[in-house]
């Protein structure tokens, strides 16, 4: 069963149309990935799904209901959680406060204690820096915090936007290890990435987004050997 289904999604920045009818599905319990070059509309798609854009057309069906007209906080309350590109942590809040704010919704607050332990299990580094201001963390630690904050929200679908962006190769691998772990725990994931090989390596299903449209889709294993995928990335 699809937990999220996006139908004919169109999005605009002011008068400029960015998405031209995007269609995709995320199956419950799966790790789905959306790949595409810079400027293809990946982040715009996610912003539209979360309700951060003014002008959006089409349908966004989450757990069988069209949530297109809900404000962002109501989507989060339903379990749709985004770890945004560029991490967007709260720099003046401590690590702990950032995580607490991650569990802001009333449902997430009930599980805050348990989830906090879980986050510290996944990222022991964060526990060491618990009372440090988040702005003083390194890039990798901030990414861990951003993912941790997402876990705190009790997501039914956790969306990760470019979690490897700007990280050293070693850190990229450890972030992907964590994503794999989350998948094994049964969390449904949507991963948007530029790092094609790593993403397809851990994903079940993939979509290729180019110029605001889905141009190809298929099982991750199949896409890895697809000439169209290679073309999309060699054509940057």
């Amino acid at each position, binding site marked *: 069963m699809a937990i999220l289904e996006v139908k004919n999604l169109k999005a605009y920045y002011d008068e400029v149309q960015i998405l031209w009818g995007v269609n995709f599905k995320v199956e419950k319990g799966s790790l789905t990935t959306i790949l595409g070059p810079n400027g293809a509309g990946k982040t715009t798609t996610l912003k539209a799904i*979360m309700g951060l854009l003014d002008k959006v057309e089409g349908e966004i069906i989450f757990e069988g209901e069209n949530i297109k007209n809900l404000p962002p*906080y109501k989507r989060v309350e339903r379990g749709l959680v985004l770890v945004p590109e560029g991490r*967007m942590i709260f720099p003046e809040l401590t690590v702990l406060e950032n995580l607490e*704010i991650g569990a802001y919704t009333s449902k997430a607050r009930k599980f805050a204690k348990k989830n906090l332990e879980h986050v510290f299990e996944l990222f022991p580094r964060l526990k060491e820096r618990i009372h440090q201001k988040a702005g003083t963390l390194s890039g990798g630690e901030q990414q861990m915090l951003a993912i941790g904050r997402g876990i705190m*929200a009790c997501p039914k679908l956790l969306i990760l936007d470019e979690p490897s962006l700007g990280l050293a190769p070693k850190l990229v691998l450890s972030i992907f290890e964590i994503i794999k772990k989350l998948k094994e725990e049964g969390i449904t994931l949507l991963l948007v990435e530029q790092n094609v090989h790593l993403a397809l390596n851990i994903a079940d299903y993939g979509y290729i987004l180019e110029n605001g449209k889905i141009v190809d889709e298929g099982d991750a294993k199949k896409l890895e050997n697809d000439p169209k995928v290679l073309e999309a990335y060699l054509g940057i």
Partner: protein
Amino acid sequence: MSIYIDTLINGILIGLIYSLAAMGLALIWGVLKVINLSHGAFITLGMFFAYLVFKYFHIPPYISVFLALIVGFILGFISYFIALHRIVSKAKSFKEYELSSLLSTFSLSLIITGILLFIFATTPMAINLPLSLFQTKLLASIFSIIFTVALGLFLYKTYLGKAIRAVSQNIDAAKLMGINTTLVLAISFALGIALAMGAGNLIAMVFPFSSLSGASYELKSFIICVIGGLGNPIGTIIGGILLGLLENFFGLFFNQGFVPFIEFTILILLLLFKPKGLFGGSK
């Protein structure tokens, strides 16, 4: 020698009251990035609130201040949706509403001041309590400390307080955490107005006032925020005390009428040489 000690104590006490008034301005700036030009008008409204409640219900200001906070919160909440919501919520960044928010809060100020002028003209008012001037100052400053500490605890210890701080740092990220940012903005504005009215209520206990008094306290609040750095609560308290001391010591040697001149000079010098405030501040 004792006159200096007197002046020192008076300066600190008055400074604490000023800092409470400034706190409301700093909070609204910090969270909404709006320079609230209706701040002074709401301080005046707090003064008249204290006066009327005392006159008709015989409730002294040190008790009616709690009512003033509640009334201020309600008025602030309504004012947010009347004057600010439409321009704030549609903007992609606060730079887009820098000017329009000045205009809308200024018109709010004109409306409030106009109503007060219509009813009370500019007749000077004072509340006669069976307390000495020093006792009223002491009482008002103790309340200022209590409210400041309460605000600090609220912002740092409660979920809603943390949400307010999160919104002030990154409103889009706050939305992604499941925070109803419209509600948080409205509550922050309401709290800022509540603090302004509460401060006005306390000031009315100490000094005489008229329909136009708010303007000078608004100016003082601006100076305190500039000294302390907008959006820095500790800086606001220190800024308030510095201004209180300055005014009182200056009054020892010169005509009190020069005080606004000195205040403006400080404001301009600070803006020229330390635009982020003496104590940094978030931005």
